């Protein structure tokens, strides 16, 4: 059943979210260079179309699981960028009270079950979330975001099989950016079209251009509706590309500047959506500037909030290990 094309309002919302991700990530990199954002930082720049196109169909009561590259998923799902920035700054006002950082950022109130520092760590969580939804008959859906690298780990196989055989309301979304950290997918996998593996699980496999947020939106919409109707999971592969390194500071010797430029300059998902919206008369140049300006101001406010926030107190160390304090 084809998904209805997004309304102008929906398009504007998606466009804004994509800019919010882009500018948040660029700011996070800048703050990292200033020693304010601490630890490892894996940015979603270039992949905005995937997270936004998928999450556009999800309610706060639907679940997503994420990866070490989780800021984009978090923002796409509707998280508060002030609390996100504070978490990256290691402050007590962050989503995780400063105890998680970038790789473990989470907002359970909007169904974001956490970024995950273990590649393929999100498969079980998403499949289990879908199991809970099925047992309750709630109509909720879970989406598992994962990368091409994760498709080589055991939990990919085990959980997709379980999701398929139990017809769980889950969608497995592969963000195939063609690199697992510093290793090209084609060097370590014969079958690089992850969606083509779906027959092994008896579920539909769909592949789309992940740089085309509208293509992602359409395919994700179908997959999520299938799941909500009780027809089980889909393996949705979005071919995409990260414009920056695996992490901030990655010297990127494993790929050429020409290759990066070909994607970053010729195939930017935000530019593509902006161009489409302008041609469709939904976005004027003025509105475009205003959106970017608003987002930029919100990001600055997030930085101010983070900078003015205290670090966690020492007695926070032994809290939240259990629901009680262990002696």
């Amino acid at each position, binding site marked *: 059943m084809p998904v209805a094309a997004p309304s102008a309002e929906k398009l504007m919302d998606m466009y804004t979210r994509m800019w919010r991700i882009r500018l948040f990530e660029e700011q996070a990199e800048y703050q990292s260079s200033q020693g304010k954002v601490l630890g490892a930082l894996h940015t979603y720049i270039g992949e905005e179309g995937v997270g936004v196109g998928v999450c556009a169909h999800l309610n706060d009561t639907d679940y997503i699981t994420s990866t070490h590259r989780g800021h984009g998923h978090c923002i796409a799902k509707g998280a508060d960028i002030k609390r996100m920035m504070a978490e990256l700054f290691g402050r007590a006002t962050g989503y995780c009270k400063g105890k998680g950082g970038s790789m473990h950022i989470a907002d359970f*109130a909007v169904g974001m079950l956490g970024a*995950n520092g273990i590649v393929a760590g999100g498969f079980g969580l998403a499949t*289990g979330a879908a199991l*809970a939804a099925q047992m309750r008959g709630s109509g909720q859906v879970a989406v598992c975001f994962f990368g091409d690298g994760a498709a080589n780990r055991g*939990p990919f196989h085990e*959980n997709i099989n379980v999701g398929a055989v139990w017809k769980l309301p889950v969608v497995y979304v592969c963000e195939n950016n063609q690199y697992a950290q510093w290793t090209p997918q084609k060097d370590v996998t014969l079958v690089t079209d992850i969606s083509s593996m779906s027959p092994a699980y008896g579920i539909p496999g769909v592949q789309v251009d992940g740089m085309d947020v509208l293509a992602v939106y359409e395919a994700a919409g179908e997959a999520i509706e299938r799941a909500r109707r009780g027809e089980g999971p889909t393996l949705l592969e979005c071919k995409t590309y990260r414009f920056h390194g695996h992490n901030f500071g990655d010297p990127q010797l494993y790929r050429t500047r020409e290759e990066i430029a070909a994607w970053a300059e010729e195939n930017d998902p935000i530019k593509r959506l902006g161009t489409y919206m302008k041609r469709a008369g939904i976005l004027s140049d003025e509105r475009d500037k205003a959106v970017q300006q608003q987002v930029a101001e919100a990001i600055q406010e997030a930085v101010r909030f983070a900078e003015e926030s205290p670090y966690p107190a020492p007695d926070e160390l032994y809290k939240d290990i259990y629901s009680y304090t262990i*002696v």
Partner: protein
Amino acid sequence: MPKMSMRDAIREALHEEMARDETIFVLGEDVIAHGGPYAVTRGIAEKYPGRIRQTPISEAAIVGTALGAALCGMRPVAEIMYVDFITCAMDEVVNQMAKVRYMFGGQTDVPVVLRLPSGSARLIAAQHSQCLEAWFMHVPGLQVAVPSTPYDAKGLMKSALRGKDPVIFIEYKRLYTAEGEVPEGDYTIPFGQADVKRVGNDVTIVATGPMVGKALEAAEILAPEGIEVEVIDPRTLVPLDKRTIFASVEKTNRVIITDEEVKRSGASAELASVIAEECFDALDAPVKRVAAADVPMPFSPELEKLVVPKAEQLVAAVRDLLG
């Protein structure tokens, strides 16, 4: 008071809790057929259809989906058929289940119960006979329960199913048929509450699992000689009831720690260290440990019988401490 086996006691706990709380469900390999590999899950499919799932051989998915469901309002009881197989799901246990509450700053409860049949039984050798409590004790975020009697098993399981934190529930396979008195009606045993299984003044034996029974045997052998052994059963290794253990050591001044894990870095090592650090002044002799030989479990019965500690070894250890 009715008597029942440990497996019956655990089964009763599951049934009673599932009647009380509709978010509880069971999953694992073969848990429906024949009532499960250990008959612990018998009757659940009939009484609570839809609340028990028989899984593929996918330990990582069993533990992972249990965790995912627990983060989303359910209370899963997952069975991993032999604790030895938990290695197939160690990421899910150690990096996910144990850490999600802390990493996410307390945004979620994690009510998962992981049932792990453990210990030697029926000559099934190295990969089906291990005791791995120490592994789970070592990971902050996990609770570890080790019942030694049907009474303890039922009470601890009920507490596990009412808690908000992950429970590694160690079930010693050889104790499934061990019988004991279990009162009618609802009762729970709190975590972090050790049990004085026998009162004595001369030496303390801190024992878990099948070694509790052997400690009591050793006590009966020694009693006619005027040696009164106090047997303390921690029941949960995390959280650990140090107060009861220390009170006993302060009374008897001599202590033996015993469990069925291999001796090297077993739970007994942690307990011995804690006692040595915090009860040193009360000790009249070094802390002793009696545990399994540091070997993979061999197959042949002539070798297997050399591995698991016996009551006689506890008797010898007591004599050694008092001699």
